[in-house]
């Protein structure tokens, strides 16, 4: 039994760092919970439940600001939720050691993603293929920093869809939003502007996490006593983190998070190998 006096501040911290980095709280929460003695499968189940709260909370603001593309979201959700169901089923059948190693590898992948992800300035519109046109994957939003309306058309939906299934598997398997993977797919494969890809990914994460949570709930891995302080703490941390983000420069946040990610990645892989 972990004391609430430890669990609550750890969850606030995970939510804070997760929001500041844009990676989500789960990536910090799960290693922290396992270090506190929580079994990794319970940690994954609690994390994925808390992901519903953080992603739905932030998605609500982005959707109301008309930046999120609901059509792109709905289309890709068909694939991510199937992936999440498969991922959660694999976790249930797996022993803890491969889960530690998989988590460490995803952390390493996120570390690389953080190094290569583009910014608003580097985005440019490309030609749209017929499938993406049939799927009506296009939209516009007002960019306050550019001071004008940006119109865009998504492309390569035929590649984005199976890749999003893979992102869903990672989310369900490891109890994280896998936002970094989804943003990479939106950015690099489907050619969405970074603001649209981040906010749409947020919307998708909530539904994907729900599919994963449903599997863990039935198998008794959602412990309300553990989940309650974590969910409340992580949302408070995320709200604080989002406010702090405005004051800190992007560069220092990135540097700090790159260090945290690599430490956690090595730690999880070592634990997986040692057993």
């Amino acid at each position: 039994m972990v004391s609430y006096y430890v669990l609550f501040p750890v969850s606030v911290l995970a939510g804070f760092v997760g929001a500041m980095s844009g990676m989500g709280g789960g990536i910090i929460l799960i290693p922290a919970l396992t270090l506190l003695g929580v079994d990794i499968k319970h940690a994954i189940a609690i994390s994925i439940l808390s992901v519903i709260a953080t992603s739905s909370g932030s998605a609500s603001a982005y959707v109301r600001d008309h930046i999120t593309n609901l059509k792109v979201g709905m289309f890709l959700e068909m694939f991510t939720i199937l992936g999440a169901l498969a991922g959660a089923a694999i976790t249930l059948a797996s022993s803890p050691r491969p889960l530690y190693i998989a988590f460490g590898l995803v952390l390493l992948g996120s570390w690389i993603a953080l190094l290569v992800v583009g910014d608003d300035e580097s985005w440019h519109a490309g030609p749209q293929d017929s499938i993406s046109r049939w799927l009506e994957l296009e939209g516009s939003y007002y960019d306050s920093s550019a001071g004008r309306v940006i119109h865009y058309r998504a492309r390569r939906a035929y590649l984005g869809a199976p890749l999003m299934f893979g992102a869903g598997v990672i989310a369900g398997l490891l109890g994280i939003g896998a936002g970094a993977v989804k943003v990479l797919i939106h950015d690099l494969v489907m050619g969405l502007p970074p603001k649209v890809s981040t906010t749409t990914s947020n919307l998708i994460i909530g539904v994907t996490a729900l599919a994963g949570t449903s599997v863990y709930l039935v198998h008794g891995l959602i412990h309300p006593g553990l989940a309650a302080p974590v969910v409340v703490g992580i949302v408070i941390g995320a709200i604080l983190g989002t406010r702090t983000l405005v004051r800190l420069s992007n560069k220092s946040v990135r540097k700090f998070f790159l260090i945290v990610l690599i430490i956690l990645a090595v730690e999880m892989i070592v634990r997986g190998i040692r057993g």
Partner: protein
Amino acid sequence: MGTRPEMTSAQHGDSNSSSRKMDLLVGYLLLIGVALSLAQIAVGLCWNFLRTGHFWIDYQLGGTNLFEFTLAEFCATAAGNLSPRTLVDGGVAVLMLTPYLRVFASMLYFMFALKNWKYSLFTAIVLGILTFSLFLR
């Protein structure tokens, strides 16, 4: 750079304003769901602290799906058996129902307001898979 000035017809204007209404509906639904859920969990934990002197609520949820779980919570509350545990459980149920209701609301909107059969179908598929997963045993 990605600008498309041709989207100014009346038809586009109508569908744009409908899409914006849908954005607001979905946005507020998510906000209310998360806020309600967190409030229930926080009140449940504080109530438990006042009753027992500690926050810890120790019980396991197993072998139940969301719909059975929500129904049991609803019945307990309707029967007046309100306790810290029913509040925390209710918070978890509301949290899980929030994205589900968001998809349901989107489907109705695509069907009746936007009359977009393609996206009504896609949303129905998402809702169908989610409903199946929430009925799992």
